[in-house]
């Protein structure tokens, strides 16, 4: 093996090592940091363990919105079949309304209430988050043409 070949081999080995490290970092990072999307029915059925962050999506149940002290709010997220109580402290997005689609990030506490750290409703009132549409379709409560 001449010097040039040796150098090439060493270079290829280095590159392979870098690639492996990178792959390991990415896989580890993904394993630690992916958040699943759940509908209220999923939460009821799968018994999501408390403290694990996930995204909860559905409609804000009509008549469930209560303002607490300060910026606290409490509401229920429903997919028509099941509903889950949710607590949030913060500014609600402009299009947060009862009966409208919502996606919240957070985790369940010990009493089964979803404590949201972030609440998203899209900026457009015609818009329904696609995950919510799918969740409603699965629970059989989706009506075509519903906005």
């Amino acid at each position: 093996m001449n010097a040039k070949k040796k150098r090439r081999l060493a270079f290829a080995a280095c590159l392979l090592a870098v690639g492996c490290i990178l792959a390991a970092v990415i896989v580890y990072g993904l394993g630690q940091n992916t958040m699943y999307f759940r509908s209220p029915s999923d939460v009821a059925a799968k018994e999501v363990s408390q403290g694990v962050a996930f995204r909860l999506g559905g409609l804000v149940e009509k008549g469930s919105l209560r303002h607490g002290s300060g910026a606290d709010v409490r509401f229920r997220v429903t997919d028509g079949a099941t509903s889950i109580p949710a607590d949030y402290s913060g500014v609600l997005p402009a299009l947060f309304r009862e009966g409208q689609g919502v996606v919240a990030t957070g985790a369940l506490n010990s009493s089964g209430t979803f404590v949201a750290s972030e609440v998203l409703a899209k900026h457009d009132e015609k818009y329904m988050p696609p995950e919510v549409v799918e969740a409603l379709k699965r629970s059989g409560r989706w009506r075509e043409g519903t906005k």
Partner: protein
Amino acid sequence: MTGELGQLSLCFALALALVMALSGLLGTRPSAIVARKIASSSAMGLLVFVALAFGCLTYAFVVSDFSILDVANNSHTLKPLVYKISGVWANHEGSMLLWVLVLSLYAALVCALKRGGERLTSGALGIQGLLAAAFLLFILFTSNPFLRLDPAPFEGAGLNPLLQDPGLAMHPPMLYAGYVGLSASFAYAASALLVGEEGWARAARPFMLIAWMALTCGIALGSWWAYYELGWGGFWFWDPVENASLMPWLIATALLHSALATEKSGAFRTWSLLLAIAGFSLSLIGTFLVRSGVLSSVHAFASDPTRGFFIMVLIVLAIGGALALFAWRAPTLQGGAAFEPASRETAILLNNVFLVASCACVFVGTLYPLLLDAINGTKISVGPPYYALTFAPIFFALLLLVPFGPKLSWKRGDLKAAWRSLFPALGLAAVAALTVLALVSPRGLAATGAFAMAGWLIGGSLVDIRNRKGARASAFAAAIAHGGLAITLMGVAGTTAWRSETLAVVAKGQTITVGPYLLRFDGVTREQGPNYIADRGHIAVMDDGKPAAVLLPEHRFYPAEGQDMNDTAIRTNGWRDLYLALGDDRGGGRFTLRAYVSPLAPLIWLGGLVMALGGFLSLWGRLRVKEPEKKAAEPGVAIAAE
């Protein structure tokens, strides 16, 4: 009438693009002088007709011609003129037309600058012709902006108010100038593979620089827009749409460095070609992600699946074709020149490894959720913690190496001498770290590390500038661009570590504190804007007990679009932003109010501008100086003249 004229121009443009593709590719044969002439004139013709079509659409938006479907869907008579114009590209059809307009501008620029040999230029025009033809077909068959609507409605549906903003009016053209600018280096690379010409890296350099500058500015503008418009006080959300613009930037940055090595010392010949292909491929993938509707966001206009399919086919053909060409022709090219382990080439190699690795992290984080959804319908999202764990350390390692590059010579450098000359930079890093530890609370490892790094980068740039005293302005380009990186880093670290935030429900007369400021809420007035109604909060700001300003954040409702949004109020002293967003109405005159104090936030975007300035200096130096080697590099000219 304008609609038909626009439609006709698009058809002519398509015909010219096909002529340009054919004659450009034929022109790569040594004796095909006529074909090369035809390619050049059809590139100019293409620009004329695409510009005419774009002008027609703009005119239709300005005069609110609602007999055109695109205008009726996306405009409104009450919209201010500037947003009528920006509305042209704030929708799927118009934005695709803008894409082709930018592409034909670059093709015309390739003709006008005539860099590199005639065969190389001709091949590049041929590839650009192919791209233009593909996108014109896409427009004509799936996204025609000139479709008529009969009967014409009296009023248009309006434009998403989030997009009615000066920052966003400029953001898409800027970003497209970057995305599509990478098509020029792509075309040059593919042409170099076809004709086997080596001088492509030098020929394509100005286009790489323009594209990179535009991408830098476009990303900075988008981030700035998200900061002041979305009302969350954040500047980067690792949203797939943002990532779609970051990935081409990372690869374009790698390409800028590796192509320089190819040009100056002949290293990384094939690798630079591959990067040029990868850069534009990521632009195409970005366009697909953003425009096809697979991602739901303000950017996703197209919900028609045939459009997504068409773009997908286009991507597969462009990327697959280019890679096949690469696999076929690259082995016939001369291999890269050798270099010592301690040399600027090694520095650039490491730069490329880290940039490509960080891009891979972003790529996986962006596409993995889509892939998983496509495979088994599992919906997941990958958030900022993933990027903090993967992207951030890789990028940090890259920054650590930045000052070494310019200190090492080509081929064979002196690592010890480079290290010694960087002692002042090391000193500056220590000073920055100690200053942060001594003066600022809360103390944090991340912020201290980031400021030490910024000191190291700025120190490295200063050492570089001192060594080049008396040289042309363009010699300072790298030092300035690297300094810009340090400025952005300080901005990011400052806001992340020391931001203070207050959220409260306030009634009239109530006061809250945020950071060093005392804020008094003086109630809300109802205001009538040109096309919206606003609740305007009046907030008196006291700094050190003295009244400093009155800020007026608004909560706007746009009746035409049926949407509401926040208009934040930001007061900056250049170093620190006070940021107010008026939240939802809690009844009885009480509103939620969000207040942030973000130290060093303006530096984030200032750094982006400084980076772009570095690119501009380099470009200016390139275009001003006529290269003496130009004759020698163009055997085609000599043959033709004989």
